[in-house]
């Protein structure tokens, strides 16, 4: 292979596919090299990694399957408790090593996936708001079960004691898991299965008529998303010396949903960015605003959220949006492209054209088909430039 061949091959690689991996790897390496991170910074990094896993997996349900799930923290809770229990049991015999961590992550993930299967079953019958209520209730049930569990088994209201992994390397492991998660979801989404799942979201009736096994795919989506939420839970249990179930209340589910909505439903990279941003904001506000100012924390946080949503979605801000657009910046370094165009040739999956709106998500469309105009002109994304 000559040098020319190599450069040719490098040029043919769609770098935008791998941007999430590259950014995370570079970021992690920088953190590793910088050395002597403060404990708060390490904690922040760990939280960011966990948020990324959660947001990406929730986006699979919300953005790609098009169902609203408010019980993601519940799956995480199951993972955290069962994985944490397994790890604390294994620590005695196997030591607090990477093997223990991997086993407990898998066990926690599997239990969460089982819960996802159970919650997926009603998902086949319910849609929109109704499913959201069921998942919300599920999250609360999971929390209450662990809260009232035996002190010996799960610690009950005192919380479960879990082994804390080595401070200096846990965040690296978490980021590795984040990359695995992103890869798993990205690979599934960019395959025939992902296509079928987005087809269900776009038009379930048509998907059924086209022979898509809607039931199986819906269950699969819930199971897979729950598995990775469980993984995030186990990793969370490793960042804590005590797992408190109050951490997994519905506020946390909503917070994950906010990440998904802010990042753009149906955009994995968006979820990653939003997860990092929101977690960072949350943590930094908590450290900056202390004492009397702590009251301002939530106000400030909510204010930022409102501003971001207004900026990114309000029609009145269209001009400003177009003036200071990320896409504009992107077009400086990348090939310009017709906004309605999705490159899809020869295996390239450049962009998943899947920005959907909350009202679309919540609308229960069984037989009426009057939304043709409304959904088509808007849903191509906020990037249309007429």
């Amino acid at each position, binding site marked *: 292979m000559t040098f020319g061949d190599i450069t040719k091959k490098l040029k043919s690689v769609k770098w935008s596919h791998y941007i999430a991996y590259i950014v995370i790897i570079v970021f992690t390496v920088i953190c590793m090299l910088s050395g002597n991170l403060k404990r708060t910074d390490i904690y922040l990094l760990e939280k960011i990694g966990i948020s990324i896993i959660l947001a990406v997996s929730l986006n699979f349900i919300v953005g790609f399957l098009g169902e609203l799930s408010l019980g993601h923290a519940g799956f995480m809770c199951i993972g955290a408790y069962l994985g944490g229990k397994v790890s604390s049991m294994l620590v005695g015999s196997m030591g607090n090593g990477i093997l223990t961590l991997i086993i407990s992550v898998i066990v926690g993930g599997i239990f969460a996936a089982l819960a996802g299967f159970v919650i997926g079953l009603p998902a086949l019958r319910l849609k929109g708001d109704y499913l959201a209520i069921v998942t919300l209730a599920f999250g609360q049930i999971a929390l209450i079960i662990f809260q009232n569990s035996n002190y010996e088994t799960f610690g009950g209201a005192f919380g479960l004691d879990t082994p804390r992994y080595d401070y200096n390397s846990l965040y690296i492991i978490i980021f590795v898991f984040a990359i695995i998660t992103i890869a*798993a979801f990205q*690979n*599934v989404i960019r*395959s*025939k*299965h*992902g*296509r*079928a799942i*987005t*087809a269900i*979201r*776009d*038009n379930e*009736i*048509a*998907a*059924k*008529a*086209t*022979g*898509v*096994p*809607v039931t199986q795919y819906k269950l*699969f989506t819930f199971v897979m998303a729950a598995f990775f939420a469980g993984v995030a839970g186990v990793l969370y249990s490793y960042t804590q010396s005590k797992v408190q179930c109050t951490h997994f209340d519905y506020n946390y589910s909503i917070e994950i949903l906010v990440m998904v909505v802010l990042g753009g439903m*149906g955009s994995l990279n968006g979820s990653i960015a939003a997860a990092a941003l929101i977690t960072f904001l949350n943590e930094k506000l908590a450290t900056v605003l202390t004492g009397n100012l702590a009251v301002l924390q939530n106000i400030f946080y909510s204010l930022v959220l409102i501003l971001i949503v207004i900026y990114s979605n309000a029609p009145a801000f269209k001009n400003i949006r177009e003036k200071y657009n990320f896409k504009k910046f992107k077009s400086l370094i990348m090939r310009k492209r017709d906004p*309605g*165009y*999705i*490159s*899809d*040739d*020869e*295996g390239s999956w450049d962009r998943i*054209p*899947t*920005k*959907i709106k909350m009202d679309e998500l919540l609308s229960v469309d069984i037989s009426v*088909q009057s939304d*043709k105009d409304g*959904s*088509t002109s808007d*849903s*191509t994304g906020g990037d249309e430039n007429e």
Partner: protein
Amino acid sequence: MSEAVLEIRNLGINFGGLKAVQHVDITVNKNEIYGLIGPNGAGKTTIFNMLTGVYKPTEGNFALFGEDLTGKSQRYICRSGIARTFQNIRLFNNMSVIRNVMVGLNDDPQLKCSVFSSMFRLPTHFKTEKAMRQKAKDILAIFDLLEERNNLSCNLPYGKQRKLEIARALATSPKLLLLDEPAAGMNPNETAELMETIRKIRDMFDITVLLIEHDMKFVSGICDRLTVLNFGTVLAEGTTEEALNDPEVIRAYIGG
């Protein structure tokens, strides 16, 4: 003519007390283009919905090539070889044209690929993806949609959206294609073109077509035989000419 593809016997459905369709008997022969017409509310689309498993018939049965499909799931029926289009276009709006067709190929027995081979990017994944894309392109080429394959399907003009829906239905490799008002909202040129396309795909894929249409020019131009429905029952049937000149049919349409 040759063997019967679809045999509908005494098909009927009640919604509560309303008998939407009753005592419908239709036999569609191989490679025929069969029309199902009737005034609004006659139960044409309801019959389509029963044939594709959306509704379960309350009486009677229907069979495709002798296999009884009454009450089977939509997916099973689709796999057995009945594909349909919708009266109001139902495309996957947020997906590109080619991906719409590829969803139709999802259940193709030759393009099997488990979730795990996709997740871990095993060779099967790449093989099926490539084969799928090629097959989708072949189908799109028939409908002159190859140029637009990378556009969002909702950005296509109306006539092309109709075509894409037929292309997607064809991707499931059906033996019987149900078209629900394929010419609705089309101008005369597009309608003529559509007639050509339907004949072409019938010969090319060796399929049988059952269609609902209100455009009489279209119906008389393309259908070999017709069944006319009114108030859920069969009003007349026979060759296109016979059925359209039946005094009962004229009365139902024009009144009097």
